[in-house]
């Protein structure tokens, strides 16, 4: 009986190590790759948009929020008592998480114009306010799903439908009216429908990554994760 328990515990530990050091960096790097990918509506060519300065700032705030919410225990991840390779692996994981967060914002922010700054401002406002709220990991994840979900719906359903080149006359009239009244500041570039699917997949993957970090952390009795404790 004790042997069975030992085998199960060993399997669990091994799976957690694989998730921490192999799966999570790959998930976050894939988010970093796809977050800036758009497909042109004219010739279906790829466009790679690197993260802008505002997305990097938002990403810093989000990572701070993840630390405050208890999803990442940074003190035990990078500590003097850990083996050097473990610290390096954790720094690398945090870097991939940072760039994935930046590209997740990049994926749901309008590319230019007044809407880009409006969305950025609302993100900034929300993240800044959340820094001073009390969060646990689960509530934080729910809050992030709502935040990214709302931005996704606004950008990839509402705005893209309004500015679609194959829209109805009513949509065309509305978009022309908005463009005229706002002197073109609300104009957004048109992308192929596949851009929305890519963004949906990217955000889904990002959330899966965050849930996995939380799962790995919460599945151990102590605060020291197998990925974090570093003693083999």
């Amino acid at each position, binding site marked *: 009986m004790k042997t069975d328990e030992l085998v199960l515990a060993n399997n669990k530990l091994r799976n957690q*190590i*694989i998730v921490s*050091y*192999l799966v999570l*960096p*790959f998930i976050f*790097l894939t988010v*970093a*790759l796809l977050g*800036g990918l758009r497909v042109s509506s004219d*010739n279906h*060519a*790829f*466009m*790679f948009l*690197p993260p802008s300065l505002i997305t990097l700032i938002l990403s810093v705030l989000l990572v701070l929020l993840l630390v405050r919410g208890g999803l990442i225990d940074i003190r035990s991840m990078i500590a003097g008592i850990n*083996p050097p*390779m*473990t610290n*390096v*692996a954790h720094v*690398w994981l945090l870097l*991939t998480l940072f760039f994935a967060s930046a590209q997740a914002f990049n994926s749901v922010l309008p590319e230019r114009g007044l809407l880009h700054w409006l969305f950025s401002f609302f993100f900034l406002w929300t993240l800044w306010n959340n820094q001073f709220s009390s969060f646990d990991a689960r509530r934080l994840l729910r809050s992030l799903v709502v935040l990214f979900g709302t931005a996704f719906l606004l950008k990839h359903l509402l705005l893209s439908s309004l500015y679609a080149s194959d829209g109805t006359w009513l949509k065309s009239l509305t978009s022309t009216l908005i463009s005229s009244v706002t002197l073109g500041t609300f104009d957004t570039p048109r992308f192929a429908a596949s851009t929305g699917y890519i963004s949906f997949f990217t955000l889904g993957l990002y959330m899966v990554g965050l849930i996995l970090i939380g799962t790995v952390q919460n599945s151990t009795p102590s605060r020291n994760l*197998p990925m974090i404790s*570093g003693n*083999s």
Partner: protein
Amino acid sequence: MNRRWIQIIGLTLSAIYAAAIIWLYATEPRTFQEVATGAQVAAGTYQVDQEKFNAALALFRREQFRAARDEWQRADSAQSDPKTQFYIAYAFYREGWGRVYNDQALFKLGVEAINRAIALSPTTLTVDDQNLQLHTAAELKAELEQGTQRSWGDVNPLKVLRTRK
């Protein structure tokens, strides 16, 4: 497999993946075909489509410069072969050359192509072709740049006696 090995494998694989992502964002390929060509260039296995190159050369010798350029661009889709870029620049020169005046737009495109050829060639680029009068990239660049400059010499009536190279 112990933790240390998983860490090393994870770091190595994800670093390669991260490098590939940075490369994609730096080169900005527009299609999967361009991704494949770019990867060949990066790996050093890229080669010009020789059949298309020869077809373009035949067109060039028949003075069908625009068609020749199109074919050369298809032969060297990554714009990474100095010799092909040299010929493209030469095609711009020959099409743009005029006894009375040169086509400025074509000459400027020629300068861009020859600059690409020079940048791609690690040594002095020389093309051994008996049908050409300019054999080095430097000569062709000088000729193209001279053609884009305006001077009092342009109003010299004897200018009509010069020949195309």
